[in-house]
């Protein structure tokens, strides 16, 4: 089934008219004699959310480290705008418009929201000896940008540590969008969040997609992925287990690829809490042992 999915995916790539911003072709990475990633194909297109799923140790982190410039790949090709690249620092990736929002490496908790928003790229005014922060303009811009992403904060002076984890992620996303990111890499943005906060983050992922960004959404939660994803890549033990676009895969299939049948009973329970997913339609554990033939239409 995996081969069939990849076959379908290739057909889809050929017909998609938008060129990928970031593309991996047979990319792999070895740390010494350990092959962490092997033969991974991935295409990130503007206005599309590409979800990378996988259990712990599947190679998700290695994959984003290659794209965000923290590590270099050791096999295959890594293309940005169709030209092969090899980033040596995160700054280079940033300059090409690839921004990464790390789970816990995003903000300085005790600093006000607007200072966090512009940290490292502050707006200034005046000649050198008296060059100072253009606070009014920064606050205005931060407020506008956050509103554009649907985040409304009454007081931008509040320390960002007082925001909820989801809102902090959202500010980090809005910041990346404002500073010219074309591709946004989100490293498990919902991993530490509750159901409601995850919903807020998912909403902003959708908002980033609306603004024409390519999004790489790393997660090990297939339900979150299925809510916003346009394309799904499942990694297992460093190789691509599944690569399929939304209309080729159902949530059941995705979940089946992510987790073995035994874990699914628990996941079904979790699914019921997420909402928006028809739990009744979900197959029981026994059904998932066999290849799932249910068509996506069966769910609506």
């Amino acid at each position: 089934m995996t081969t069939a999915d990849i076959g379908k995916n290739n057909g889809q790539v050929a017909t998609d008219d938008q060129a990928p911003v970031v593309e991996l072709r047979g990319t792999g990475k070895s740390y010494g004699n350990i092959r962490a990633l092997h033969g991974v194909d991935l295409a990130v297109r503007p206005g599309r959310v590409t979800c990378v799923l996988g259990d712990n140790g599947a190679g998700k982190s290695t994959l984003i480290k290659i794209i965000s410039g923290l590590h270099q790949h050791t096999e295959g090709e890594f293309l940005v705008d169709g030209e092969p690249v090899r980033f040596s620092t995160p700054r280079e990736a940033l300059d090409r418009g690839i921004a990464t929002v790390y789970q816990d490496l995003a903000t300085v908790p005790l600093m006000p929201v607007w200072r966090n928003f512009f940290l490292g790229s502050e707006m200034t005014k005046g000649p050198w000896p008296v060059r100072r922060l253009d606070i009014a303009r920064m606050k205005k811009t931060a407020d506008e940008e956050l509103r554009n992403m649907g985040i409304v904060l009454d007081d931008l002076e509040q320390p960002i540590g007082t925001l909820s984890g989801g809102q902090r992620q959202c500010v980090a996303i809005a910041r990346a969008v404002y500073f010219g990111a074309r591709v946004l890499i989100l490293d498990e943005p919902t991993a530490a969040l509750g159901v409601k906060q995850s919903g807020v983050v998912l909403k902003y992922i959708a908002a980033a997609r609306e603004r024409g960004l390519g999004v790489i959404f790393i997660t090990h939660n297939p339900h979150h992925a299925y809510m916003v994803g346009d394309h799904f890549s499942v990694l297992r033990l460093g190789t691509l287990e599944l690569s399929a676009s939304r209309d080729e895969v159902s949530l059941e299939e995705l979940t089946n690829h992510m987790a073995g049948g035994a874990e699914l009973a628990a996941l079904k329970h979790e699914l019921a809490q997420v909402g928006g997913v028809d739990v009744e339609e979900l197959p029981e554990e026994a059904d998932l042992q066999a290849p799932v033939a249910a068509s996506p239409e069966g769910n609506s």
Partner: protein
Amino acid sequence: MTMSQQAAPAVTSPPASGPRQRDGRTVQRPLALRLLARPEVGVFLGAVAVFVFFFAMAPTFRQGSSMATILYQSSTIGIMALPVALLMIGGEFDLSAGVAVITSALTASMVSFQLTMNVWVGVVVALVVSLAIGAFNGWMMVRTGLPSFLVTLGTFLGLQGINLAVTKLITGNVATDDISDMDGFNQAKALFSSSFTVGGVQFKITVLWWLLFAALATWVLLRTKYGNWIFAVGGNKDSARAVGVPVKFTKISLFMLVGFGAWFVGMHQLFAFNTVQSGEGVGQELIYIAAAVIGGCLLTGGYGSAIGPVFGAFMFGMVSQGIVYAGWNPDWFKAFLGVMLLGATLINLWVQKSATRR
């Protein structure tokens, strides 16, 4: 394709929680609570309390000349407490700050005297040495990744020994020779240690410098890029680096700023007393750190102000002189200090918790 239609409401359903959150945000905390969360308000109230206390207890305290003495004492602590506070906001310590003051004064004095040159030569050499000590502290810390506590403890012990040994080696004495009859002395004294009169009360010029530096530090901290970086490297070094803040530059330059402060205070001591005792300065570094902490700077970095340490140093001056004016045993000073420090730290702890509370 129907699948994506089915999923569309799933994407838009989370915002349902949006309006409720917005409403929650509009509830302002009480004004008093918000004011207390400012780093300098706690110490301001503390300073007012101490002032009122001694104003009531000690009649001498109410005289203008007493206030001038208190301000002078506060300024010699306060000028150093400012860069120490900035460094603390930047997440680091400098235990060598106290002896570095003496190192600077000794350097200026001995270079001028031994080479029989204009004192300004000594002053400039001392500035270079002080900045170099700061740069060394910062560079060692950034390069090795050791805690600044350890690095500057090494510098502290090293400088303490060097101060004594080199002074004895060169002058044959534990103090430097009197430089008051040398070229340029009066000019330098005018800059670092002169007096001026306001309303019949004589004030030391260090008070002016102190307030000037405090204003400058406040402006830098709150209104410049560099100030933003100070908060960021102290608050979360890794986040700061990830968004492109030059963490190493910021930290090293903050240590050099402490070096500058040590130079200025060292020059004041040299030109106020004409000679320098090489064994002095030990223990002063803790006074500077205490003034910064009482002034609302968070020991772990990322939070604080430049105004707070001004009040912190002022409190020090008031307590140390007030005890004398009240006719008490000055030995009580350190006890007061301990209580003040503990109280200030508890307030800081509470502020940090309430500021990061969801």
